[in-house]
C-alpha cells in the first residue's frame, strides 16, 4: 500500500503519540537496558519538540497489566523551561513513568510459567486513537498526528481482533502508524499496522545506535516523507492462520457465518456451531434438503 499521500499535509507541524513498551518480562531479557533505552527516547522526544515550535508529543506507556498517559507536551505544566536548560519534560515524564510502573506491578497476579507475556498493545493503541480524534475535533488548524510504537514484546494472538479494529480506524482517519521493533523476533502485528496505514516499520539491527535510527527514520514529518528514502515494507505476510492449528495457510475454507478459517473440510464450525451444507434451523439430518457442495 502506498504511503499516506503527502499532498494532504501542507505543513510540517506534527503531533507524535509515542507508545512506549514497559513490559517487565521483555525488559528483563533484553540486551538493551531500560535506562539506556529511555535516554535514547528522551533525546529523540526533545529533538522532535525542537524541530518545530508547534510540534506536540504525547507518551502512553504500554504495560503488562495496564496502560496510561505519562506525558503530554501541550499541557500547561510542561511548557516552561528550567533555567534555560532541558525542559521540565524529562523530570515530569520520568516521575509519571515511575508511578505508572509501580502501579502496574501492583496489579500483577500469579500467572503460570511458560506462557508468552505480551504487553497490552491494543489498549494503548486505542487510547492513542481517541486522543487523536480529540485533536481532530479541536478545529481546522491542528498538527498532523501520527503514532510511533516502540515495542519489544511478542504479539499476543488474543489481541488480534482489537488491533485490527484499531488499524482500520487509523486507516480511515488517515493516521499513519510507524513502528520500531526492538525485540528479538518479528512482530507481524506491527508490520501489518504500518503497511495498512501507510507508516514506516523498522527493526534496528544495532540497538546501541537506537537514537540514530529514531532520528533518521521516525522523526520525519508527514509532509517531508515524499522527499526522503525511508525503509520500504519488505515481505509483509498477509496470509491467514487457520483456527485449528494456527498454521499459516495460503488456501483454506471459510465458514460463511462467522468467517472462521479452517485448513481442512469440517462438518461443523467450531466457532459458531453451524452445521455446513444444511439450513441452520435444522439440526441433524435433513435428507430432503439439497446439499450444496463447496467449491473445489
Amino acid at each position, binding site marked *: 500500500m502506498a504511503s499516506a499521500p503527502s499532498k494532504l499535509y501542507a505543513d510540517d507541524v506534527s503531533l507524535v503519540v509515542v507508545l512506549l513498551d514497559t513490559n517487565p518480562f521483555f525488559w528483563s531479557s533484553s540486551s538493551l537496558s531500560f535506562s539506556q533505552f529511555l535516554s535514547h527516547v528522551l533525546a529523540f522526544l526533545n529533538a522532535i519538540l525542537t524541530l518545530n515550535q508547534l510540534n506536540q508529543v504525547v507518551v502512553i506507556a504500554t504495560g*503488562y*497489566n*495496564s*496502560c*496510561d498517559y505519562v506525558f*503530554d507536551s501541550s499541557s500547561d505544566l510542561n511548557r516552561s523551561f528550567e533555567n534555560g536548560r532541558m525542559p521540565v519534560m524529562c523530570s515530569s515524564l520520568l516521575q509519571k513513568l515511575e508511578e505508572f510502573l509501580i502501579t502496574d506491578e501492583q*496489579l500483577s497476579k500469579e500467572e503460570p510459567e511458560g506462557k508468552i507475556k505480551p504487553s*497490552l498493545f*491494543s*489498549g*494503548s493503541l*486505542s*487510547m492513542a*486513537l*481517541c*486522543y487523536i*480524534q*480529540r485533536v481532530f475535533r479541536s478545529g481546522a488548524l491542528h498538527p498532523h498526528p501520527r503514532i510511533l510504537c516502540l515495542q519489544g514484546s511478542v504479539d499476543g494472538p488474543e*489481541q488480534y*481482533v*482489537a488491533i*485490527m*479494529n*484499531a*488499524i*482500520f*480506524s487509523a486507516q*480511515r482517519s488517515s493516521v499513519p502508524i510507524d513502528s520500531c521493533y526492538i525485540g528479538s523476533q518479528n512482530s507481524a502485528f506491527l508490520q*501489518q499496522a504500518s503497511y495498512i496505514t501507510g507508516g514506516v516499520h523498522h527493526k534496528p539491527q544495532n540497538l546501541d545506535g537506537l537514537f540514530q535510527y529514531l532520528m533518521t527514520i521516525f522523526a520525519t514529518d508527514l509532509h517531508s516523507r515524499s522527499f526522503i528514502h525511508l525503509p520500504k515494507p519488505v515481505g*509483509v505476510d*498477509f*496470509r*491467514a492462520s487457520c483456527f485449528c492449528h494456527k498454521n499459516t*495457510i*495460503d*488456501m*483454506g*475454507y*471459510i*465458514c*460463511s*457465518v*462467522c*468467517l472462521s*478459517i*479452517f485448513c481442512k*473440510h*469440517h462438518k461443523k*464450525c467450531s466457532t*459458531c456451531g*453451524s452445521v*455446513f*451444507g*444444511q*439450513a*441452520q434451523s435444522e439440526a441433524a439430518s435433513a435428507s430432503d434438503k439439497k446439499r*450444496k457442495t*463447496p*467449491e*473445489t
Partner: protein
Amino acid sequence: MNNGAGRRINGAAEEDDDEDDVNGDLDAWERTYTDERSWESLQEDESGMLRPIDNQALYHSQYRRRLRSLSSTAARIQKGLIRYLYIVIDLSRAASEMDFRPSRIAVIAKHVETFIREFFYQNPLSQVGIVTIKDGVAHCLTDIGGSPESHINALMKKLECSGDSSLQNALDLVDGYLNQIPSYGHREVLILYSALSTCDPGDIMDTIQKCRKSKIRCSVIGLAAEMFICKHLCQETGGTYSVALDESHFKELILEHAPPPPAIAEFAVANLIKMGFPQRAAEGSISICSCHKEAKVGAGYTCPRCKAHACELPTECCVCGLTLVSSPHLARSYHHLFPIAPFDEVTSSHLNNPNCKLQRNCFGCQQSLLDPGNKPGPAVVCPKCKRYFCLDCDIYIHESLHNCPGCDSLRHS
C-alpha cells in the same frame, strides 16, 4: 427599506429560489443575517437566563436513541456477512423532479456512489449489482461484482430519466439473478423509489410472494411519499421501508444499509467456502495480469492454485475462479461478530454521591469531564471496566473503533 426587507425575510428566507431577490434589496450588513439567525438558537433555562442550544448534547442524545433502538434485542445477533445486494434505481419521470437539489436523480447518484464505497469497505466479501427502471422496463446496468469502480462508472454514465416505473418488472429481474448465486450468500435488494405509482404487467402480489419464497430481503427508500405497496413488500420480505425528508436524511437512510443487517437463520445455508490467500508477487517479477490482459512488473498477487496474476484484492481469479482475499479483509468484519456493549450514561445521582471516586478525565482522550464551573459534566461509563468516557469518545468508539480502550487496558486473568 429596512421594514420591507424585514417582512420579506421572515416570509421568504426559507426558500432558496427567492433568496436572490430578497438579498438584492438588502444592505450588505443585513445579508449576513438572512441565513443565520443566531437569536433563534437561544433557549431559556429554568431561571430565565438565556443560553445557546447545546448542539453537542442534542447530537449525542440522538446518537444514543439510535443505538438503543438498534441494540434493543440481544447483544449478539447473527449478521449476514456475505451479502449479494442489488440496488434498484428508479429512472422514471418522477426521478427528474427538482424538489431535491439539483434533481432527485443527481442526489441519488451522488449518495449511491458514497454508499457503494462504504458498502465495500464494511463488507469486503460481498458483491453488488445495479438495476435501473426506465420506461416501465427494468434493465441490469451492471452484473453482480466486487469492484466498486466499475459500478460507479457505469452508473454515472446512464442517468437519463423518462417514462413510468414498474416495481414488478424490477423484482422479477432481480429474483432471476439472485436465484443463481451460491446458497450461503444473503440476498438483498435496495430499491430507491422516486415515483408514486407502479405500472405492472401482472399481479405484483404474486411477485412479492415469489421474492419471499426465494428468501430475498427487500428494502425500499422512498423519495416522494409513503406507498402501501412498498410497505407491504418490505413487511413480507423482512426489509425496512423509509421515506427521505431531505438530502441529508436520505444520505443517513441509505448509509444505514451499509452495515450487515441481522440475518434470518433459515435464509442462508452455512457452508465452507474455499478461498485463497495470495502473497504479493516478488519485486521485479514480470507476469501477464489476467484482468487487464497486459504485462505488469512486480505489483500484484499470485493465485495460490493456478499461479495467475491478479491486480487487487478481493477478487475472483480469472483463470480458476478461486476467491482471493487477504486476512485484513476478513478481519474487517470481525467487529460485527464481537461487538462491544453500549456504554451507560452516568446519572447525576451517581455523580453527586460523595463516596464514589470521581474520574476527572475521559479515559480515552484525557479531556476534562468537568464543566467550566467545576461541576461534573455529561459522561458515559463502560459497564465492564467502569472507566469514564466523554460523549465524543463514546460515539467514536462505537461507530469507528469498536474497541473499548478501558477493557483493552486491563489484563483479564
